[in-house]
Structures are given as C-alpha cells and as structure tokens.
C-alpha cells in the first residue's frame, strides 16, 4: 500500500515536470539551431498558414532571396533569417514573437495584418527589440505610441493621397477626365479604411469629378451582380474599385456581362495586379489602372531582386509583397551596418536615423519620421498591359505608355 503511494507521488512529480518541460522545451532546441555570431538574426513573422496564407507566402519569397540580392548589390551584410508562422492569428503572432526573441532575434520583421502586427509590437515594445513593419496599412500602428517600431509601408491616408494625385496625373497626361465617379468597395479591414479615408479626404483633394455614391459589399460575397448593377445605375463616368482578388474578378466579369464600360481605376487596393486576376479576366483585365506602391523598374536593385525571384520561384508572381518584405530586410541590413552592433538600442537608434537612397520601391529615400513612419513612399500607376502589371506613371519609372481612356470591352485592341 505504502509503496504504491510512494510511486504515485513520484509519478505526479514527474507529470508536473513533464508538463513544464512540454511548455518550455522548444527553447533549447532553438538555441542549438542558432546561427553563427557574426550574422544579424532577423525573425520574420508572417501568416503563412490560415486565411492570409497566400500573401504571407508571397512575402516570404521576397525574404528568401534577400541575401542573394544584398550580395549582388555589394552590401556587406549577411542576414540570418528565421521564419515564423503567425497562422493568421494574433495570439500565435504574439507567442511566436516571444519565441523569436527568446531564440536571440535582434530584429523582428512582419506581419502584414494589422492585428497580428500590433500583437507583435506589444512584445517588441516590452522587450525593447526593434520591429520593422513590411506591410500593414492601419494608421494606429504608428499612432499608438510604440517606440520600437518603424513602418516601411504607406498608411491608408498616405496611399490614398498619392493614389488620387496620380489620378490627376493620368487625366493630365491623357487630356481626358471623368465628371462623375462611383466607388465600389469591399467591407473588410482594408476596404473600410480606404472608404473612410476617401470619404474624409475627397472634399479637399480637388478632383475633377463628383463622387456620386459609395457602395460597399461583404467580403464573403460570391455574387456581385446586384452591387455592380447599383453602381451602373448611377451612370457614373468612372468606377473606382477597392477589392481583393476574388471579388475583383467578379466585378470585372459583371461589368462585362452587364455591358457597362466606365473608366476603371483601382485606387490602391490589391487584387487587380495579381497573376490570378489577370489570368482569369484575360482580355477584359487589360488596361485596368491601379495606383499602387510598386517596384521601380529603373532601379538596379529591383532588377536583381526580380532576377533572383524568378530564378528561385519561376511560377510565382513578383509583386509588392515580395518587394516590401525585401525592403524591410534591406533596412535591417543598413541599420546593422550603421550601428555596428546587434544591441537593440543601438539598432533602434540606427533605424530611426537611416536614410537609404538606393532601394527597390518607387519613391524617395527610405527615411522614418518621429513616429517611425516612412513618408517618402511613392505611388505608381500600373496598367495591365500584355498580361502583366506595368508601370506607366510617373514618367521617370515608366516602361510603357499609358493607354487612357481605356478601350471598350469589344474594342479590337483588347486581345
């Protein structure tokens, strides 16, 4: 009887220890796999599984080729990049950020989604480790008082300001301008930020057209015929569409089916430049204009990045997800070189002072203001030409002429 009790108590103790080990076990495993002391350890936190997997994986591709491009451009930095999956969940993002720091990360990069990014920012702020945001448009990220964050992506208002300025350029360059417009937007986090921004900014933008209506639709909609019909009923000259991939395709298909040919502009949303969109819409997706931050075709670094991306991922599209993620790593590299140390405070200081002239995305040098926001990011005008998103404005970066107004659906030019 006694013996039995004795054994059982030991078993209990073991069970408790096992539990604790289960929770703490990953740590020594990670340390064992750590890289050599000379590299800068960058933890890349992205949603590579879960609902945002498509974009997370696209971002990661930009990071996978980073070291090759840095070597090409003779930048003396080698990054030890460790990938972490946030599973499209903020609580996972948070624990993975903790894990990364425990494993010795000097810098965190991520995370595309605003909710996950903020979860990571809490950890970065708490532990005093710099976080470089590659993509995330919600203004509060740099407005909430975080000191250890820099963001190399435009906020929704910045994006819109640039996008509408570029619209004016399009009208100026072609000599044609619409008199009325309607906005059709998806009602998710990004879409509502865009709509809110547009509604707030529009009165002061001085656009040549009047905004007749704003029509929003649910992100999960499988059928947009009613929405497009509503838009068509406004008889506007210009249709601005804020959508993602699937709904973007639906919108174009509906436009064709309902035989409506407005001027078609995407004022900064994803979707219309993506490979799947272009492939599915075929000739009807041609000539669609999108105002996006984009890679500068005239930059040598962009060429190198594109080359390496194509070599390693021949079947995947090279777009701004990869571009911005690479730039985040470029920023980390520059900060490291300037700081000459991997200490977090030194790195953060260097990050705040960084000024990078040669980079990948269109716009002025990479530089962060007091809140950690890069305000020099430019917006380009992309036009789907020959089944690829092509930069047509600004002139310095253009590789093809702008076609505006856009040809009708049955126009001979559409092939």
């Amino acid at each position, binding site marked *: 009887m006694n013996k039995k009790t004795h054994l059982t108590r030991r078993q209990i103790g073991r069970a408790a220890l096992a539990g604790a080990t289960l*929770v703490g076990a990953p740590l020594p495993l990670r340390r064992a796999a750590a890289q050599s002391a000379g590299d800068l350890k960058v933890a890349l936190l992205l949603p590579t599984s879960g609902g945002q997997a498509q974009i997370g994986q696209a971002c990661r591709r930009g990071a996978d080729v980073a070291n090759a491009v840095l070597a090409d451009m003779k930048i003396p930095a080698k990054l030890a990049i460790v990938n972490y999956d946030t599973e499209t969940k903020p609580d996972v993002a948070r624990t993975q950020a903790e894990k990364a720091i425990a494993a010795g990360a000097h810098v965190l990069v991520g995370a595309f989604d605003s*909710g996950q990014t903020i979860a990571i920012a809490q*950890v970065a702020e708490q532990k005093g480790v710099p976080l470089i945001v590659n993509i995330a448009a919600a203004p509060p990220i740099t407005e*909430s008082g*975080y000191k250890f964050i820099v963001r190399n992506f435009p906020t929704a208002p910045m994006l819109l300001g640039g996008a509408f300025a570029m619209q004016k350029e399009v009208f100026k360059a072609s000599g044609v301008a619409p008199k009325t417009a309607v906005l059709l937007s998806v009602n998710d986090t990004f879409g*509502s930020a865009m709509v*809110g921004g547009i509604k707030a900014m529009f009165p002061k933008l001085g656009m040549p057209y009047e905004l007749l209506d704003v029509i929003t639709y649910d992100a999960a909609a499988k059928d947009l015929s009613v929405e497009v019909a509503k838009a068509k009923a406004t008889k506007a000259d210009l249709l601005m569409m804020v959508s993602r991939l699937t709904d973007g395709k639906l919108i174009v298909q509906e436009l064709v089916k309902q035989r409506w040919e407005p001027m078609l502009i995407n004022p900064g949303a994803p979707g219309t430049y993506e490979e799947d969109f272009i492939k599915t819409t075929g000739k009807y997706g041609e000539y669609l204009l999108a105002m996006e931050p984009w890679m500068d075709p005239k930059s040598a670094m962009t060429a190198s990045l594109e080359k390496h991306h194509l070599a390693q991922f021949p079947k995947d599209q090279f777009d701004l997800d990869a571009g911005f993620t690479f730039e985040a790593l470029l920023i980390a590299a520059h900060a490291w070189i300037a700081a000459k140390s991997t200490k977090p405070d030194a790195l953060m200081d260097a990050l705040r002072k960084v000024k990078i002239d040669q980079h990948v995305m269109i716009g002025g040098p990479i530089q962060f203001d007091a809140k950690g926001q890069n305000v020099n990011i430019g917006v380009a005008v992309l036009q789907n030409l020959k089944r690829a998103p092509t930069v047509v404005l600004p002139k310095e970066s253009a590789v093809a002429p702008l076609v505006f107004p856009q040809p009708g659906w049955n126009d001979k030019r559409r092939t």
Partner: protein
Amino acid sequence: MKTRALVTLAALLVFLVAAPAFLGGYALSVLILVLYFAYVGQAWNIMMGFAGQLSLGHALYAGLGGYVAAGLYTHYGIGPWAGVFVAVAAAVVAGGVVGALGFRFSLAGVYFALLTIAFAEFTRIGFDNWAWAGGSGGMFLKVERGVSDLVNLRGGPTMFYYVILAMAVGIFVLCRLLLESRLGRYWLAIREDAEAAQAVGVPVFWCKMLAVTISAALTALAGVWNAFYYNNLFPETAFAMGRSIEMTLSPIIGGLGTLFGPLVGAVVLTGLGELFTDISDQFHIPGLKQIFYGLALLVIIMYRPAGVWPWLAARLGFTERDK
C-alpha cells in the same frame, strides 16, 4: 478531496504563482495562453458541461465584453475595472436573449448551437458597420512602455499573467462552489433527465437561464482581459466562429463537466500546439502544424471521448468523486 490531490494542487499553485520569476518571455506567453483557454473553457463549460447546452457562438460574449470595456476606455477614459461592469451587463443581456429565445422555443442540440452561431455572426456583421466601435477597421488602445498600471491594465506580460491567473483560480473556486450548491444539483438533475426534473419541481427554465447568463458574464471578463492585453479589436476576429470553436476545445478535450477538465485540456492542447509548431518548422510546409493538431484532436476524441482529465485522474490515483 484526497490528500494526494490537495498536495498536487498546492504544488501547482505555487508553481504558477512563482512562474514569472524563472520562466522566460516565450514560456510565460505560452502559459498565459494556457491560463486564458483554461479560464474561458471553464466559463463555457458552465453552460455545456453543467447545463448541457451546446454553444458555438461564445465569442459573442467575449467580443461584447472586450468592445464595451475597450470602447469606454478609448472614448471616455473609463478604466477597465469600472468598464467591466458595463461589459458584463452587455454580455448578460446577450446571453439572456439567446437563452430566453432558445429555451422558450425549446431548441436543443444542433438547433440551439446554430442559434448561437447566428447571433454571433449577426453581431459580427453589425460591429463591422458600427463606427463607434471602429467598424471593420478595428479599435485600438494606446500603449505606454515601462508602465505597470493595474488600474488601467497598462503594463507588461507579467501583470496580465497574474490577472489571468487570479481569474483562472477564481473561476475554479466559483465552479466548485456552484457544483456543490443547490443550483449545481439542479443542473445535474436537468442534465440527467430534464423532464423528470421538471416533474419534481426543479425550475428548469431559470436554472438554464442562470447557466447561460453566468457563463456569458464570465466569458465577458475574458474578453475584457483580452482587449487590454492585445490592445486591438476587430469584429472579424473578436466574434469569429473560429474563436468560439477555440473556446470549446479545451473543455471537450479535457473533460466536459469536470472541474479540472478545462485546465488539463488547455495544457494538453497548447502544449501540443507548440510542440507541433516546433516540429513543423523543420519541414517548411505551411499548414503542417495544423495537420498534426487535427490528427491529435482526432486521436483524443476517438480514444478518450470523455476527455483526458478523467482518464488522467484515474491513472494518478485521484478519487473519482473529486471531479
């Protein structure tokens, strides 16, 4: 309670209280998640395990709680300790509506579950379009570094750890008391045979309503904690069905209707989750971790359908009576 059980419990408590002193940031963040899921699982357990009503829309209460408290804080500067009362009230009203409608119209099983899902989804879309709550753009709380402000719940993980630990301990004590009380016995009777219970005079409708509202209120507290810990809220995540489902996993896997089921379930699931993440990292196949996780769930529900805790308790020699 047997001595063996008491000793283990005491040791566990000591470990948990002392944990921040020796656990690193990562382990602590994982432990925080364990305690969170144990807490919220226990809250859900009250409704399901004690009163037998399957709710798959519990994120409704957590979301409401979080949004109300966070909203009061960001718009009016009302701290969470005051805001929590309003948050809980909102959740109680919601739970009351769901419960009243469901029970009045005698919905049970999957029908009731669908009602809960419908309410959660309805609310989600509503919040998506509500400007005061930030719409689908989300609600954000301001952060301050190096502050440990318990009044406004601004601070580091350690502070939040102790808050959730207190909440977890609190809810276990509460459930223990509830189970032993007359209400607890009524619940047992209703679970066994609702018609017979009605026949002998048990106020079935009110007991069920109490289960729902108590569960909703406690879940709202978790929502408040969550909002202040993560400092941001989006309707599409706060009221998501995925969240609701997450809340049910720990208690079902751990052992429905038992006192320690949710805690054991939370430990097992979170532990497995981290283990699988580590293993999957070696292979670079996205989604691999969730495949392992799904397999684990499958194995557990097939071979231990009553939950891990009852089996574990028997193995460790704790008395059956002490659930």
